[in-house]
Structures are given as structure tokens and as C-alpha cells.
């Protein structure tokens, strides 16, 4: 049982840590000052969510402290999906990934509100308000740019087409699905994916964008089992660059 919950916590946290790091790469480079501040703040929220999940792992399952888990694991030990590790690209791609990812995260926490694993249910309740702002931010940008000029529309559609196979990879199942479902910890990745699709479809339509043909896309799986793209390792190296100088330093 604990292996199943640990796996769930770790993949949620790893997703949040990696996308938080990626999105923070926009800090100081955002398209305009106001958006730079907002996007950086969202990135910070993600790191906060990751910390909360790593802390549950430490408190409930005796795992190492969050810094150790975040900075000192090998690439193969990360259970994040491949969507979050892709480079930031142009702002259209980063916004689209933010839209697709944050809706999945928001749906996941909504489902976890009823989790039989109380620490996760409590966390889900605590960050509900934050997720509301995250999806509001994403929806507004997607809608403005999708239904904006010819160029912004074309860019957003291209970003959606590019990100979708990776976004579907988010819902890669683990070996613990049945156990999580039967014990009421989590309803499972397939139920999550259904909810997510129902949530994003009307917004994509409202943004004047065309939903890619989901049934005929090969999702980019692998991340949940430690198989990553060439982009994760450089990110991890950069993230732990300072700590690696002397991992035993007291901060």
C-alpha cells in the first residue's frame, strides 16, 4: 500500500518541481513586466506544491528530506512526465504547456479532495485557491491569443499540436493503479484523463483552436517509469549546480 502512495506522491511532486524550474527560466525574460511577475509567481507556486508533496513523503513514509529528494536523485529516479521537462521554447509553447499541465494538476487535486489518504486530501484542499488562479491565468492567455491575430492563432495552434502527445503522456499508468483505485486513494490516471479532456475541450474551442485528434496520437510515455528525454539531465544538473559543489554544506 505504501509503495503505491509513495509512487503517486513522487510523480506529482516531480512534475511540479520540474515544471516549476522550467517556468522560472522565464523570470526576467517574460514578454512584459506584469506577465513576467505573474508567470514567475506561478512557477514559485509549483515549487511550493512539490515541497508539500516531498514533505508528506518524509513525514508519512520516512523518505529523505525534501532537498535531498529534489536535488540528489539520478535522472532515472525521477517519475515526472516528459511534458514538463521539454525546454521552454517560445512563449506560445510555454503558455500552452502551462494550460495543459495546470488543468491536469487542478483536476488531479480536485479528485484528491476525496482521497482516503488524508495528508493528500488536506493538501488538495489547501491549494485549491492557488489552482483557481493558475487555470484562470492559463485560460485567459490561451483564449486571447488563440482568438487573437492570425499570427497568434497560428502559433497557439502549432503549440497545441506539438504539446498534445506529451500532455497525453501525463496519464501514463503505473503498476499501482488498481491498488490506488480500490483503496480509495486516487481514482486513477484514466479517470483523470477523461476529466481533463472534458475540462480543456470547451476552452480550446472558445479560443478558436482545433483540438488535435486525440484517438490517433501516440502519447509520449516513459517518464512515469524513469525514461526521459535528453532535456531532463541538463535541467537536473543546472538545478543542483550549487549544491553539488559541496552536498554536505549547511545552509
Amino acid at each position, binding site marked *: 500500500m505504501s509503495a503505491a502512495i509513495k509512487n503517486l506522491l513522487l510523480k506529482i511532486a516531480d512534475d511540479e518541481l520540474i515544471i516549476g524550474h522550467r517556468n522560472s527560466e522565464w523570470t526576467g525574460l517574460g514578454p*512584459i*513586466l*506584469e*506577465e513576467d*511577475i*505573474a508567470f514567475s*509567481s506561478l512557477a514559485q507556486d509549483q515549487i511550493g506544491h512539490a515541497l508539500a508533496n516531498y514533505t508528506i513523503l518524509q513525514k508519512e513514509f520516512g523518505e529523505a528530506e525534501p532537498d535531498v529528494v529534489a536535488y540528489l536523485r539520478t535522472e532515472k529516479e525521477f517519475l515526472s512526465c516528459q511534458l514538463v521537462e521539454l525546454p521552454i521554447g517560445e512563449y506560445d509553447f510555454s503558455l500552452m504547456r502551462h494550460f495543459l499541465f495546470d488543468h491536469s494538476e487542478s483536476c488531479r487535486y480536485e479528485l484528491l479532495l476525496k482521497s482516503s489518504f488524508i495528508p493528500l486530501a488536506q493538501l488538495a484542499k489547501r491549494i485549491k485557491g492557488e489552482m483557481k*488562479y493558475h487555470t*484562470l*491565468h492559463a485560460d*485567459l492567455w490561451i483564449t*486571447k491569443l488563440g482568438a487573437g491575430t492570425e499570427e497568434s492563432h497560428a502559433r497557439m495552434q502549432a503549440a497545441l499540436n506539438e504539446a498534445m502527445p506529451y500532455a497525453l503522456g501525463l496519464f501514463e499508468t503505473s503498476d499501482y493503479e488498481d491498488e490506488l483505485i480500490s483503496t480509495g486513494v486516487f481514482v486513477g490516471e484514466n479517470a483523470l484523463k477523461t476529466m481533463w479532456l472534458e475540462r480543456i475541450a470547451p476552452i480550446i474551442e472558445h479560443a478558436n483552436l482545433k483540438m488535435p485528434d486525440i484517438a490517433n496520437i501516440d502519447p509520449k510515455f516513459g517518464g512515469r517509469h524513469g525514461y526521459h528525454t535528453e532535456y531532463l539531465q541538463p535541467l537536473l544538473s543546472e538545478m543542483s549546480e550549487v549544491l553539488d559543489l559541496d552536498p554536505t554544506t549547511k545552509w
Partner: protein
Amino acid sequence: MTPSIDPRIRRADLDGASGFGALVENENWTPFAVFHQDKRGERHEFVGTIHASDPEMALLFAKEQYGRRKKTVNIWVVRSSDIFTFAHEDEDMFETVPDKNYREASGYPVRKRINKYLSDKEHETV
């Protein structure tokens, strides 16, 4: 003229020869005034301005810029151009001649009388 050592000034192309900095529609966003409320029922207070393409975006940005560092329950945004004001050179309208200071709230020196009343009362009870 000596060129400025500030790169922002040098980039600013102040003589306007290149046309840089000219106002182009949709390129320059609208300034909005932001009003912040820290408690339900309290009044919204003006806290600053932001640029945004429209009111929805203005709210989105105002939330992060003015609602992130302190307790916030609500925010208003208003197009700065929708705020009507006096000209600063008309500031003299607000000046009051000395013999009209009874109109100012400070014209009523009640604090002294309250203190006197309180201290009298205290003596009574002793």
C-alpha cells in the same frame, strides 16, 4: 550633447529620428489604476497602476502584483483614463484661509476636553 551612459536612455532615441517609440494602436497597453481591499467591508484603496490589454488581463496581473504580498480579499481595476481629476495647478483651490480652520476636522479641539473629563472622573472615583 554628451551621450548618456545609461543604455536605456541611449536606446530611447530621444530625437525620434527612427520613429521608435511612436504610439501604435494595440502595441501600447492601457494603464489601469488598481484598488486593493484587505478585508470584506473595508474600502478599496488605490495602490498603484499596471498596464494591461483589457480589464480581464488587468485583474489577472493586479492579483499577482498587488495581492501577493499582503492580505487581500478583493481587487478593483479602473482604466486610468476613466478617472477624472483636477489639474495640479488648481491646488490652491484647496487652501483654506486661517480664519476658516473651524471647517477642518482638526478645528475641534475635543481631545483636550475628553482627557480633562477622563482625569476628572478618575479623581472622583479615588
